[in-house]
């Protein structure tokens, strides 16, 4: 099986050909935005981090930004720095350059002021555009595809229809030699005994259990005070309204997203995949933070199940929305790509719906736009902190 994608200089394959502007620190956000606005179709990845960070917290920011800038869906990237930040524009530039990707940088304090930096940045981005627009789609084997498995706005239909359907899609991709990643550690509490049986080595199951234990310890610690007794629910008001009663029930519905393939790897937040097949990435449960990790890890496309319905998208990767709730699909047709509620109506079954989604994934990989892309949704870019200094 093949799709029509973009072959990059480091050998990786993209499904989109973005020209990206990425600040190394939040202080450069507005300059980066003003540069990106001047060139047609450039995307800007503004964020809230890059300085006053240390250790694993700073490393996580650096890893996320480097792995996004070198993502195969990006053809060329302009880095915008301030000049005094901890995650230096020089380190960022060198990391991207080393992969052979087209990259340039502009540093505000070196240019003089923000106006001069915008002017210099527009000229550099204009030149990059000339390189990026020369990429052409070519035939690429489906085994080079990595999909992220995400869910948000869960209701009871997710666990019985949409999640099992994308689990089948994930199995089909893995059988064809491709890879998929599931994440959201908080959404696994109570389902770990089922997942460990599917880990391909003892080491992988130990890493998976460690991630869950660490997360659960943090959750217990931060909800221990009586002050937070009304803020201790791990699932949202919408989850409750949708019929999900406990975090364990949510987890048992959630893990159907992973299909039946063995778990071949456990990776850190935003770390690139090392093993083919199904992988677990240790991420927060927030849709944006999780999706950011999945894409930075190498996912070119994200499958996103939503029973309640959410319009969100990611700036450099297609997000495909699948609902298991017929009513939600009727209400949100402009936001939702696939109605897996047909499983509940008895029109399709989990296997046939999994095949329908797999076919859609191949079309999107070759250029078909998802609804979140058509509407320009990009809310899911969100880099989480490891250290938080507020008490």
């Amino acid at each position, binding site marked *: 099986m093949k799709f029509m994608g973009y072959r990059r200089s480091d050998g990786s394959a993209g499904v989109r050909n973005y020209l990206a502007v990425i600040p190394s620190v939040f202080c450069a956000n507005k300059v980066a935005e003003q540069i990106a606005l001047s060139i047609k179709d450039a995307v800007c990845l503004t964020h809230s981090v890059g300085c006053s960070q240390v250790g694993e917290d700073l490393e996580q920011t650096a890893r996320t930004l480097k792995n996004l800038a070198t993502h195969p869906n990006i053809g060329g990237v302009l880095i915008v720095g301030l000049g005094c930040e901890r995650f230096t524009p020089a380190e960022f530039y060198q990391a991207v350059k080393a992969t052979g990707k087209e990259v340039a940088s502009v540093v505000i304090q070196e240019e003089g002021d923000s106006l001069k930096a915008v002017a210099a940045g527009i000229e550099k981005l204009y030149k990059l555009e000339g390189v990026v627009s020369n990429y052409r789609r070519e035939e690429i084997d489906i085994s080079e595809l990595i999909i992220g498995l995400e869910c948000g706005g869960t209701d009871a239909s997710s*666990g019985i229809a949409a999640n099992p359907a994308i689990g089948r899609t994930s199995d089909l991709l893995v059988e064809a030699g491709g890879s998929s990643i599931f994440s959201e550690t908080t959404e696994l509490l*109570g389902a770990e005994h089922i997942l460990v049986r599917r880990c391909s080595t003892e080491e992988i199951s130990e890493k998976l259990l460690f991630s869950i234990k660490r997360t659960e310890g943090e959750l217990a610690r931060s*909800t221990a005070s009586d002050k937070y007794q009304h803020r201790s629910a791990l699932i949202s008001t919408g989850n*409750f309204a*949708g*019929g999900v009663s*406990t*975090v364990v*029930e949510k987890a048992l519905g959630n893990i159907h997203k992973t299909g039946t393939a063995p778990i071949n790897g456990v990776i850190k937040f935003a770390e690139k995949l090392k093993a083919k097949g199904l992988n677990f990435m240790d991420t927060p449960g927030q849709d944006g933070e999780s999706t950011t990790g999945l894409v930075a890890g190498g996912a070119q496309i994200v499958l996103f199940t939503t029973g309640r319905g959410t319009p969100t998208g990611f700036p450099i990767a297609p997000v495909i929305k699948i609902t298991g709730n017929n009513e939600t699909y009727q209400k949100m047709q402009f936001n939702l790509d696939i109605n897996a509620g047909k499983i509940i109506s008895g029109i399709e079954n989990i296997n046939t719906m999994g095949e329908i989604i797999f076919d859609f994934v191949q079309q999107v990989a070759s250029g078909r736009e998802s609804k979140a892309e058509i509407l320009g949704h990009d809310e899911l870019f969100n880099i989480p902190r490891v250290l938080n200094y507020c008490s």
Partner: protein
Amino acid sequence: MTQVKVQSLNIGKRVIKIKEINILQISEKDNVVVILSEAIADDYFYFKDEKYNLKEAIPFGHKVALADFAVDDKIIKYGEIIGIAKENISRGSWIHNHNIISDRGRMKAGDK
């Protein structure tokens, strides 16, 4: 899936339709089932040749008890324990966060 059978009750001007509803048992071990349509009190379903009447309205996707539960009884869905009963729950009742709880991911009552 079971056929929907409708009978009408006239209560004043409102016509309330008591109906047979569709349900889903995910695992053989489950002691709750999922309601696959919006349901009102007295709606009913048949499961393994037994008739179950709903004690109250239950929204689409929510759970109904297949048995009577006492405090601390295990509630099973997907073949696994999703929580325990916080109060006595009778057969045909709505099962949700008002009457079941799981301690995963939060400090347990005795831990403080």
